[in-house]
């Protein structure tokens, strides 16, 4: 339905921002997880998760873009990727996951980065809620035409 387009657009953005928040909570929760993945008989620490988003595309949007222009369909999440930056090494020989030299690999999660990401996605979420409410009140106002 074309009149609900702007609501769908905002809804897709709310979904994307919530997923970003989920990724942040997962990263912070696993900031100390030394056993994230079991690879080749060895435990790998947790790797920081990142959400990749892009503009939502569809065949109809491509078609109308060739014409007068297109308002857009919102956003979509393309991938949840892992950060490949090196793990932090902490000296703790008593740790069960320590290597021969007594170092433990810790996840590459930077709490500072996560907090800024969290604030950014919260703000975006709020902005999209505002837009959603504005579109909703416009649709309700349209129902008053001719009353």
């Amino acid at each position: 339905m074309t009149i609900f387009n702007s609501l769908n657009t905002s809804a897709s953005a709310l979904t994307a921002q919530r997923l970003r928040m989920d990724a942040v909570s997962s990263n912070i929760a696993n900031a100390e997880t030394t056993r994230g993945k079991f690879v080749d008989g060895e435990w790998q620490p947790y790797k920081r998760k990142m959400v990749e988003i892009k503009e939502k595309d569809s065949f109809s949007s491509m078609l109308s873009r060739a014409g007068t222009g297109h308002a857009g369909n919102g956003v979509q999440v393309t991938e949840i990727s892992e950060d490949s930056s090196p793990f932090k090494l902490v000296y703790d020989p008593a740790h069960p996951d320590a290597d021969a030299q007594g170092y433990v690999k810790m996840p590459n999660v930077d709490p500072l980065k996560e907090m800024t990401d969290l604030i950014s996605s919260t703000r975006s979420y709020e902005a999209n809620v505002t837009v959603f409410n504005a579109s909703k009140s416009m649709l309700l106002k349209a129902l008053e035409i001719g009353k």
Partner: protein
Amino acid sequence: MLFSNTINSLENALKTSNIQQKVISNNIANADTPGYKAKKVSFQNVLSSEMDSMKATRTDQRHYEFTNASSAGAVIKNKNSSYHPNGNSVDIDQEMSDLAKNQIQYNALVDRLNGKFKSLQTVLTGGR
């Protein structure tokens, strides 16, 4: 004659306002999308076509009324500016104020449209 051009103009304005709303929602939805370029609605062609439809005069009563076919704003993309290092050009403050503006404009248009219908009703009921 009963339904003058005003209603058509208001209808087109409402349509444009609706497109504007869609564009603003999409811009704000993509505020964090890398490489996204903000879009906006061009009012210039809408305005000129509306002005043309206002100017048209009928020289004969048997002529059809000069009502304009639906004309709504064209969506254009601003490819040059970049607001973020990741290539995104959405200015969130600008978008939020545009949103407020557009909402008030939409409400005003609906009010005017209702006013138009009200006055028609007054005529039809003979002022009673």
